């Protein structure tokens, strides 16, 4: 997607409207004029709820993980390694169920890529987890407690020379190479490149090349899967980019949950300084992705600020300021933060309803949160959504699902500004309960 020449002179609101128009008018060759209209109508649902208005029907946009593969009798390992299965099940599932949004193809990850890279950060089927289990994070201190200074001084160099060699076995030789910022004058150029003659570095470069091919093979499959759903069923992708809250970047895959929690007592100043350093790159990451895909929604899964994970005072002081800076940076660019709140956020609602964040510019998707309070506190400023529980999908009867959705929509959706969704990314669901979810959304959301 190419931004208009006058982009820098547009207001955030003009940028948002431009991006929404581009998303709705996406240059896809649809199967028929009816499908093209269905696509535009669905995008309109999102435009309406984002603006806090009542849509023609409540959008039903569950987050989908391995569910399609379980649905058709395939394992996680097959989904991660066999791209024909990846594409076919994805299409058949959406054809059978017809939600209003398409998410989350990125969660069906390419096993072959991780084999080449020797990825240590996660376990996946055949590499530490059973064949029918989704990938899982290997909780460790991948960033050590005494490395904050290096991270804060130069995140790029820290990533390249310390973090990446630790989390990817294939990238260990990066630790031998100098930072790219050494390349400033002609006399220093040869010493810099001499490092690339080392055999382990050459081997790494070959693996990087192989990884690129493996990633491209998967990306083409993912684009084909989503492209077919879009072109033949008229279902838009729910997100076009992603980013994270700085506290989660540190806590999820760098210091680890436990490490970061101990740092709160032992080195709180370093946490704050590191998070501030991560704000610009968190914005830039999304901006590049969303500009490429042409979809204005930024998927932001958040974890470590949930109820119980810290006090309200710590949330206000530690978690929220830099996350808010990321949200404001995205909104400034006309992007739509779509925050996927995992866990319970009952204690955070007043804080996240922050009046310094412009109204009707973002989406809060909740999981185990009191939706009546969420509607009253956050819903008056921003679009909200959620929150059908995982257990109800996995073990509920169709009748229980119908009753839950009916009550949820009566509580949250009568005046618009609501998206019906799952509280979590769905790997498991009883087919009858899942179909009841979609049907109840249509019945009570009309």
């Amino acid at each position: 997607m190419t931004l208009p020449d006058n982009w820098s002179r547009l207001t955030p609101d003009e940028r948002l409207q431009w991006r929404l128009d581009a998303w709705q008018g996406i240059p896809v060759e649809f199967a028929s004029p009816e499908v093209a209209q269905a696509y535009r109508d669905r995008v309109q649902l999102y435009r309406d709820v984002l603006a806090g208005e009542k849509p023609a029907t409540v959008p039903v946009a569950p987050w989908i993980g391995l569910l399609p593969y379980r649905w058709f009798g395939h394992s996680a390992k097959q989904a991660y390694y066999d791209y024909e299965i990846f594409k076919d099940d994805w299409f058949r599932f959406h054809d059978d169920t017809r939600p209003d949004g398409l998410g989350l193809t990125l969660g069906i990850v390419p096993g072959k890529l991780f084999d080449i890279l020797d990825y240590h950060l996660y376990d996946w089927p055949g590499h530490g987890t059973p064949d029918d289990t989704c990938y899982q994070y290997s909780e460790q201190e991948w960033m050590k407690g005494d490395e904050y200074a290096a991270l804060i001084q130069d995140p790029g160099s820290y990533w390249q020379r310390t973090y990446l060699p630790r989390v990817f076995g294939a990238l260990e030789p990066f630790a031998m190479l100098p930072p790219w910022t050494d390349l400033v004058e002609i006399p220093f150029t040869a010493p810099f490149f001499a490092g690339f003659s080392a055999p382990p570095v050459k081997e790494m470069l070959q693996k990087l090349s192989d990884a690129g091919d493996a990633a491209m093979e998967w990306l083409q499959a993912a684009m084909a899967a989503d492209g077919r759903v879009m072109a033949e069923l008229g279902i838009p992708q729910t997100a076009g980019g992603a980013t994270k809250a700085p506290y989660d970047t540190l806590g999820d895959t760098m210091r680890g949950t436990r490490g970061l929690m101990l740092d709160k007592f032992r080195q709180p100043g370093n946490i704050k300084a590191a998070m501030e350093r991560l704000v610009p790159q968190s914005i830039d990451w999304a901006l590049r992705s969303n500009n490429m895909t042409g979809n204005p929604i930024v998927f932001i899964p958040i974890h470590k600020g949930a109820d119980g994970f810290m006090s309200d005072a710590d949330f206000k002081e530690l978690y929220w300021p830099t996350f808010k800076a990321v949200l404001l940076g995205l909104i400034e660019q006309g992007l739509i933060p779509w925050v996927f709140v995992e866990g319970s956020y009952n204690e955070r609602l007043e804080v996240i309803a922050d009046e310094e964040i412009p109204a009707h510019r973002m989406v809060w998707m909740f999981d185990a949160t009191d939706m009546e309070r969420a509607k009253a506190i956050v819903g008056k400023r921003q679009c909200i959504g959620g929150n059908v529980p995982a257990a109800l999908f996995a073990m509920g009867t169709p009748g229980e699902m119908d009753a839950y959705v009916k009550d949820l929509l009566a509580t949250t959706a009568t005046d618009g500004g609501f998206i019906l969704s799952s509280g979590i990314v769905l790997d498991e669901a009883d087919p009858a309960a899942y179909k009841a979810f979609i049907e109840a959304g249509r019945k009570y959301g009309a």
Partner: protein
Amino acid sequence: MAAGLKEAVIELREDDALRITDELLGAGTDPLELVAACKEAMDVIGQRFADGQAFIPELIMAGEIMQGITAKLKPYLKAGAQGEKLGTVVMCTAQGDIHDIGKDIVVTMLDIAGFNVVDLGVDAHVDKVVAAVRDNKAQVLGLSGLLTVAFESMKATVKAIEAAGLRDQVKIMLGGAPVTGAVVEFAGADDWGKDAVAAVELAKTWVGGAS
């Protein structure tokens, strides 16, 4: 002096707590007095957690301080000197799930509460759980899981416990973010807890004979 240790632990002043421990031990204080002070401090932190005044970071930090103090006390404590255990609990994250944070907090809190805890770690194979319950004559089994895939594993584990003829001797509690009463019913367990304090309360209730 032990009161100073208790206060330092409650206030999560790690350096002070470890320094006071050294000073007390150096002065010949009965190590059991220190153990008692720590237990009282952890009771206060546990109560604060139950009351919504303390959170997971506070529990983890308190556990970290306790580990430091325990390491210092070890040479001074005779085997079994910490008194009778309340009972034995086997803890693990259910097969197929490798999340450990919640399970580890429950292990720490049970240990501090006076239970003998057998920690089987994560992704615990059903057969391993059955063997641990049988070999340790556990009165309580705690199964943790963050993924919905753990529901099936929990069910399979309960079935295996039944098949081994052990179901009457062991109460089974579930925990983890997606767990609800419906999961307890699905898996055939006895109850669930929303956090570590609830897990300790359940274990105490069951080992005390009530159900």
